[in-house]
Structure formats: structure tokens, C-alpha cells
């Protein structure tokens, strides 16, 4: 551990990231530019989230990493190990025991509490990017609250598919002001973004943006009166724990193409099974 600075980053970099986090909390949903540093892992591995975690961790924290709901993917394990080594923090897979949770593409099923911090890895922070590639223009659009094009795009979905086809990174409006990309979480998770007791921080490494949602912030998924937002999921109970309220992954379980649906949040599923809940596919 002595070969590293605490949590890897040098103090000046942490100060810069910390200042950006405070601005992000003061202006919920606004993307604060920051000077992203090279991290000893490729960009796709969540260098933005890693830098935000490095700036907020204290030695007393208990750290959890989830990758699409799972604690045991290569990505999650390597980030967890990185902070065990560089920050000496305790780590856990139990959502309720963690004080800082770094996540890629999910919000835990278990409601988060005050005192917890959820750090998202964000690949593309700009929700208007696919409508307008130029940063100077999207910045202007945000400053003028020019979000009409975004609604047009969602409405085109409706005319083409009969419903809004966007199912990940579904855009939200924060406190009636900024349209924000919630990172590629399934839209099933969108309702958890608002009124959350925990602090939510978003880090995009390649794009060099940090943004934030303070606790109890109003977050509304964009929709239309005749097509209200729906937090959909696969219409099955979990095959392992029987949960009907969790987001499910579809798994192929045998060579014959047999399928089963299982909670994407592995901690949630395992805790339910340990408590005696059993799904139809459980052994």
C-alpha cells in the first residue's frame, strides 16, 4: 500500500475532482467538466467512476462494486481489489453494509440509506449527444433548456414502435431544469433515481464530466401525457428466489436452449434465498 497515494490519485487531482463534485451537487443534473486522469485500467472499465470513488473514499469506508448487478464479474472484482490495495478499505458484496457503492448499469434493488454514496460509471454523459454531436451546441441547448428535440426523438419511437423503445439510459429531467443521462441503467431503475436517501455521483472518464443528484432530488423520466413512462421488466418471477419486484436477466441454462429468469442484483437474490425464498428453478 505504501507504493501508492491513498486511493491511487495524487492530492491535487482529488481536490480538483472534489471541487467538481461539490458543484455537481449544487447544480443537480448539470455536467461539470473535470480534467480526467489516466487510470491503470482501460476506459471501458469505468475510469470516471473509479476517479470519483477515489476522491470520496475514506479509510473507514466499506466499498462495494457491482457490474450489471453482479459483484463477481472481472470488472467488479478488479475495481474492488484496486481500492482494497490502494485505499485499504474494507469491501463487501452486501448492499446494506456498504457505505460507498460503485456501479455499472444498475441501481441496487434494496433501498439505499442516508450515509450511503452511489457512484455510477458513465460512458456517455451527454443525453443530447445522439441528436447533436457538437459539444458547443449541446451546452447551448442545456443553457437555453432547449429540450424539444429530445421529446421529438422519443415521440418518433412511439410512432414507429407504438411505445417508447428506449429501454436503457432513459433520459430524465432533474428538478424541472436539466435533462440528464442516468447512465445505461435499465429504465426499470429510473424511479429509484428520485427521492433517494443516498448521494448519487456520476463520473464519465473519457468524456471528462462529473454530475450529481443530492438526496431527495426530484427526478422525472421524460414522457408524454398519452404515453406515460413505464418502468418495465421481464414479466416473470425470479427463477432462483421467486422475487416479482426485481430486475431480471434472462439466462440460457442448457444446450437445448432452456432459459430462466434470475435477479440481475446478485446480492438481493442471494439474500432472499438465504432467507428461505425459493423460485421454481431453484435446486
Amino acid at each position, binding site marked *: 500500500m505504501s507504493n501508492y497515494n491513498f486511493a491511487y490519485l495524487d492530492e491535487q487531482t482529488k*481536490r480538483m475532482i472534489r471541487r467538481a*463534485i461539490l*458543484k455537481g*451537487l449544487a447544480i443537480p443534473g448539470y455536467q461539470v467538466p473535470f480534467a480526467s486522469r489516466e487510470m491503470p485500467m482501460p476506459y471501458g472499465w469505468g475510469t470516471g467512476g473509479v476517479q470519483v470513488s477515489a476522491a470520496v473514499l475514506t*479509510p473507514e469506508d466499506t466499498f462495494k462494486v457491482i457490474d450489471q448487478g453482479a459483484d463477481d464479474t472481472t470488472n467488479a472484482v478488479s475495481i474492488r481489489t484496486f481500492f482494497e490495495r490502494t485505499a485499504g478499505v474494507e469491501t463487501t458484496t452486501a448492499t446494506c453494509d456498504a457505505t460507498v457503492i460503485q456501479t455499472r448499469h444498475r441501481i441496487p434493488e434494496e433501498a439505499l440509506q442516508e450515509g450511503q454514496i452511489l457512484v455510477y460509471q458513465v460512458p456517455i454523459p451527454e443525453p443530447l449527444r445522439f441528436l447533436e454531436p457538437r459539444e458547443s451546441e449541446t451546452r447551448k441547448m442545456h443553457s437555453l433548456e432547449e429540450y424539444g428535440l429530445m421529446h421529438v426523438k422519443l415521440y418518433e419511437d412511439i410512432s414507429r414502435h407504438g411505445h417508447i423503445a428506449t429501454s436503457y439510459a432513459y433520459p430524465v429531467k432533474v*428538478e424541472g431544469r436539466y435533462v440528464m443521462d442516468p447512465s445505461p441503467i435499465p429504465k426499470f431503475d429510473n424511479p429509484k433515481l428520485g427521492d433517494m436517501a443516498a448521494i448519487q455521483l456520476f463520473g464519465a472518464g473519457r468524456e471528462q464530466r462529473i454530475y450529481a443528484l443530492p438526496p431527495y432530488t426530484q427526478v422525472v423520466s421524460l414522457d408524454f401525457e398519452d404515453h406515460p413512462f413505464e418502468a418495465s421488466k421481464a414479466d416473470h418471477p425470479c427463477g432462483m428466489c421467486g422475487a416479482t419486484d426485481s430486475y431480471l436477466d434472462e439466462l440460457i441454462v442448457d444446450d437445448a436452449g432452456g432459459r430462466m429468469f434470475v435477479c440481475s442484483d446478485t446480492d438481493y437474490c442471494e439474500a432472499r434465498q438465504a432467507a428461505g425464498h425459493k423460485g421454481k428453478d431453484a435446486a
Partner: protein
Amino acid sequence: MQAAPLSGGFANTATQSAHAFRSVMEAMARPGTIQDIEGASPPAPLSPAAGAVLLTLCDTETPVYLAGEMDCDAVRSWLSFHTGAPFVGPAQCMFAVGIWDALGPLSIYPIGTSEYPDRSTTLIVDSAGLSASGAKLKGPGIKDYAALFLPELEAFQANNLLFPLGLDFIFTKGSELAALPRSTQISRLDSKAGAQVGAS
């Protein structure tokens, strides 16, 4: 007693600034809550809390304005030694520190631009009266409402109307702090509501 410039900084920078930042972040994320912050022993008139905030957030990249009696040799030497922050006037500063009466009027500070509302000043209001009384706070970070003593209401209400532009405030006293971001809506707390906050 004046502390020498070389003393009174964080003994273990990485750990103490991580703890101090957590306090500042919790305060900014939950307007009105009062947080402990430790680790700094700055020279008077700077409070230990204000000193810790400056050590945590300031360096050569953050111009600082010292308002009123904060602009003295002891504070200048201490801050220079520990942070390297350049001293500037209010129109150029990223951080301003002083007592409330010395910091005003708020119109002298950058409030950001419509495309970069983050390019604004954070004011550290030292010797603040930290208590859950006087002003009623609503907005992001606050469940229902919070209460916080503010030196006046109008200046902060006007600042909130500038949102998403505006100034952010950190109130410090002794080894405690609270924060008021630009997003917080402020009204006068009636005494009945104050009693409820006190009881909760």
C-alpha cells in the same frame, strides 16, 4: 496566540482531507445539516473549520479572496504555505472567506455563465451562527424541509432565483460547518415549525 505558518496544517493530508471532504460533501448534499470537520489549526481569525475547508479544496489552481480582517499576514502566510493558492479580488476568486459582514455585497462575485454555471464563487462564511433556526430550507438534498440560521434572508433568496447560476455557501464556526447551495429555496421559519425541527 498566533500559529506559525508552517504548523496547523493536516498532519496526514490524504486521510484528513478525505475525512474533511466527506463532511463538506455531506453538508453540500444535505443543506442545513451541521457536520463536524477536524484536522486544521489555522491562525486567528480563521476558524479550524474554515481552515480545514480551505486545506481540502484549495491549491495553486484556486484563486482565493480574503475578505475584511481575514486579509492579514497570519492568514496569508498560512494559506500560502499549505495550499499555494493565489490571492485575488472578489471578481476573480473561486473561493472567498470572511465573516458575513465583510463578504458583501454578493453582486461582486462571479455567478457562472449560462453554459458554465459551475464557474462561480463558493463563499466560506466564517463565525456563522450554526443552528437549526431562523430560515426554512427546501430543495434538492432536503427531505420535506430543513432549518438553518442565516445572517439574512433576502440575499440568499435572490441568489436562489439566479439558479442554475449563483453562489454556493459554506458556513463555518469552531469545528463545525453547514452549507447552502444555490439550489435551496429559503423562507422565514415560523416559530411553530422551528419547534418541530428542534424535536426531530
